[in-house]
């Protein structure tokens, strides 16, 4: 299996789906040149400027137009540039995209994929570092996935594009250059199928996207002291694979939930709730959560690191869950 970066795996997914279905087109700012993260590079050359549309800086019109196109036979893939800027198209995502099928009484589908490059990394500052998936978790009508590896990136993006419903794909910015094996061609990962990234008997650690990588580092550190954590990656939050999560908890009886966004009101609260609902009696200890501090993301590297979830934080939470000194 070839090794690709996460970014190139996404590029391959776009390329394959555009070749497969001419209704698929891309729209965003500066995507013709592959800006800002290289994911769309070479696609304008391959498919023409008509299918790789460099839009004006008009997020509301970019997303809104894609909603209009989706309801009239096209399958747009929208590049949000930075997920932070979804704030500039919030109405289009929430009131038009997510709700219209339902409010139309099911008259048509809205097969739109919204690519959301997000997250903390490289001191990009408070307007370019946010995790915004919690907003959309509370917005019925959207499916959400967050790939953590190059293979998942390809498989989930391809699935998202073929889905007849709106899917938001959250791509953690710092993962774009991470490499891993990626199946060639037809590689589809269904939404709602979690993946155990590392098995372990002691504690279930639930994490998505870049937090999976951080959790895997924590797993190595903990393995050194004989603690085996199981890293479970839900891969999609809507739909959510409750069964796999519950099965893991039934084995470990202890749970740590890791997320990159702020703790208060974060997706971890929802996951904690789901686990509790599904496996309350299995829990031998209170659930623990590791999340960003409840502040915007600051600029200076020292501060940025101070607010972000770190390996050390996961290690401490796992130990706490096991009743050990943190």
């Amino acid at each position: 299996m070839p090794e690709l970066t996460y970014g190139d795996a996404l590029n391959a997914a776009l390329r394959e789906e555009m070749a497969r279905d001419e209704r698929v087109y891309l729209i965003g700012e500066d995507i013709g040149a592959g800006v800002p993260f290289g994911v769309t590079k070479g696609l304008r050359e391959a498919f023409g400027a008509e299918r790789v549309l460099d839009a004006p800086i008009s997020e509301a019109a970019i997303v809104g137009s894609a909603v209009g196109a989706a309801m009239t036979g096209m399958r747009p893939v929208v590049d949000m540039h930075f997920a932070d800027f979804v704030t500039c198209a919030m109405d289009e995502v929430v009131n038009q995209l997510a709700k219209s099928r339902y409010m139309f009484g099911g008259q048509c589908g809205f097969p739109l994929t919204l690519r959301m490059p997000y997250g903390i990394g490289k001191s990009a500052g408070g307007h370019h570092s946010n995790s915004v998936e919690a907003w959309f978790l509370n917005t019925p009508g959207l499916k959400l996935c967050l790939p953590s590896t190059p293979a998942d990136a390809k498989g989930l993006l391809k699935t998202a594009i073929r889905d007849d419903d709106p899917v938001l794909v959250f791509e953690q910015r710092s993962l774009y250059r991470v490499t891993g094996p990626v199946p060639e061609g037809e590689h589809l990962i269904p939404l709602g199928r979690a993946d155990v990234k590392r098995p372990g008997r002691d504690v279930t650690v639930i994490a998505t996207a870049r937090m999976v990588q951080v959790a895997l580092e924590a797993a190595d550190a903990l393995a050194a002291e004989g603690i085996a954590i199981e890293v479970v990656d839900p891969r999609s939050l809507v739909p959510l694979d409750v069964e796999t999560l519950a099965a893991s908890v039934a084995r470990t009886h202890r749970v740590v939930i890791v997320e990159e966004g702020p703790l208060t009101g974060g997706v971890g609260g929802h996951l904690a709730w789901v686990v509790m609902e599904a496996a309350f009696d299995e829990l031998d200890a209170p659930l623990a959560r590791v999340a960003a501090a409840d502040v915007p993301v600051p600029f200076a590297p020292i501060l940025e690191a101070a607010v972000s979830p770190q390996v050390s934080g996961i290690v401490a939470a796992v130990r706490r869950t096991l009743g050990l000194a943190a």
Partner: protein
Amino acid sequence: MDEPRLAADLYRTVLRIRRAEERIRDLYAAGRMPGFIHLSLGQEGVAGGVGAALRPDDFVTSTHRGHGHYLAKGGSLRRLIAELYGKATGCCRGKGGSMHIADVAAGYLGANGVLTAGLPLACGVGLSAKLRRTDQVCVAFFGDGAANRGPFHEAVNLAAVWRLPVVFVCENNGWASTTAFAAATAGGSIVARASGYGIPGLTVDGNDALAVHGATAAAVTRARAGDGPSLLEARTIRWQGHFEGDPQGYRDKTEVAEGRRSDPLVRLADRLRALGIWDERWAKETEEATLAELDEAVAFAEASPDPLPGDALGDLFVRPIGD
């Protein structure tokens, strides 16, 4: 179409909207319909004129004041009324309501509870037509108040720079709820903004359905030919309150009284007379047919079943979760 035929058609359409809106007003007042209702009484000339300039396979994105737009686009009166009743037979199966009438098959891509939201949607519909290599056109309706929201700017610029087959139709009725046009809008008109985007802008008397039709037809022709969008501003008058039940303390009663002198239906009748083709019998038959259709639609809605509570969970996804 020759003018006599067109004028007669417009008369029929405007009459149909007029009578439907009047009936809705009365039914709503009688407590038969839940929710909020915004009527287009007095503004029917705009809907009629625009609708007549479109093909069945063209599209419209609409507003909270959209009943007339829907009917003029070939919408189903039965399914409209049933939706206003919240019945299972409504065009949105009772999930939408007055502010969210939609009929995709009729090319009516939704009223909208969010002002100005329809303009970006229309750009995408136009883009879709372009990419699918059809010559379909999309009209985006919006009010004078809605013209002050950002998506107006983004959409008009996008359509202009990509030469999308979109016609932006502003219904300027002088009011945005309680706020007078001039108090909220700089520049004196909406159409004044067109030149900044290098697109044609045209003001038209919205109470003259024939004039609206003419201006729209020209803009539609241009759009179909691939020459890009136009901005029309139809000046008209809102006869009712902003919503049904609006006490309207903010506006002078004389305004509507004066406005009624420019009744688009009367003006069409006058035009038919001037063309020498007004026929009392035809008018009577048209009126009767209109009322008969309306009576039937109301009866249909009344007799239709309510949705079932369990229906509330359906229609969210094409592929429901868990399937």
